């Protein structure tokens, strides 16, 4: 899965609205996008819905992909924006429900993981806030460079590094990990 192959597929889609080439891009990157959103939401079904929406947005905006960075970086930027928009919408929805005196959405409807299946990663992600979680996942799970994360989150590179530093510090503090325990 090389960067140039991705760029060739993008060119095919943009030049002739080749849906099959876009299908190839979806099947190449669906795993990373879905994994990224699963780690952010902790809800598999919601993450897959958001991933579908993210790919639809990518289809609409594909001609804006400049090709200067990696396609997966650009795709994760769209996925992150889709996630933030959905968070905003669900917050607003919760506010409306509270306004009319209804109970909050039943948590049991979500397909989040049962407590016994909570892995080390979920414990680790739980101590991070939303922004830290997104940046740590982009960095350590998706392998994006600081520059690519900066593009994806619209944050300066320095701020990305600060967030990673802060997140690592939280992990060290919360899990009482000493330097010699790494590796």
């Amino acid at each position, binding site marked *: 899965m090389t960067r140039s192959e991705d760029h060739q597929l993008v060119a095919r889609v943009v030049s002739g609205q080749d849906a099959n080439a876009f299908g190839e891009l979806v099947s190449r990157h669906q795993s990373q996008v879905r*994994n990224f959103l699963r780690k952010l939401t902790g809800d598999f079904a919601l993450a897959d819905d958001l991933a579908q929406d993210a790919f639809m947005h990518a289809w609409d905006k594909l001609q804006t992909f400049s090709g200067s960075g990696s396609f997966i970086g650009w795709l994760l930027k769209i996925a992150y924006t889709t996630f933030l928009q959905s968070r905003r919408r669900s917050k607003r929805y919760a506010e409306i429900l509270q306004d009319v005196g209804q109970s909050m959405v039943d948590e049991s409807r979500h397909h989040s993981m049962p407590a016994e299946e909570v892995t080390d990663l979920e414990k680790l992600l739980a101590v991070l806030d939303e922004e830290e979680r997104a940046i740590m996942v982009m960095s350590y799970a998706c392998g994006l460079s600081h520059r690519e994360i900066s593009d994806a989150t619209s944050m300066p590179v320095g701020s990305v590094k600060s967030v990673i530093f802060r997140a690592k510090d939280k992990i060290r503090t919360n899990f009482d990990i000493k330097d010699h325990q*790494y*590796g």
Partner: protein
Amino acid sequence: MTSKIINMADSIKDAEDRFLESVFRTDSLADNGFSRMVMRRIRRRLWVKRLALPVAVVVGAAVAFKPLVGLVAMLAGILQVVPNDMLETANQALPHLSTYILGAMLLAACLLGLRTIEE
């Protein structure tokens, strides 16, 4: 030079980074019909886009039909007022006006059809 140093600093990984990578690493997810679902939504959207123009033309024509008939009737009324000499002169200048109009409409329809096939 500066950017090279920054890139190098980014790529240097210590034990902590390697530890975090091992924790964050997850197996790649099986597609399980996900790509097919996305492509189905995209193809549906493409069809809607293709059908939008012809449907808009049909709806527009249906809406505009009655006012157009009224307009033609009004023009016919005006033409009766116009002296016969003037009408004859117009006919002599453009003897096959109705054929030209029909031809232009057919050409427009063919171009629209070709564009749809091309897409």
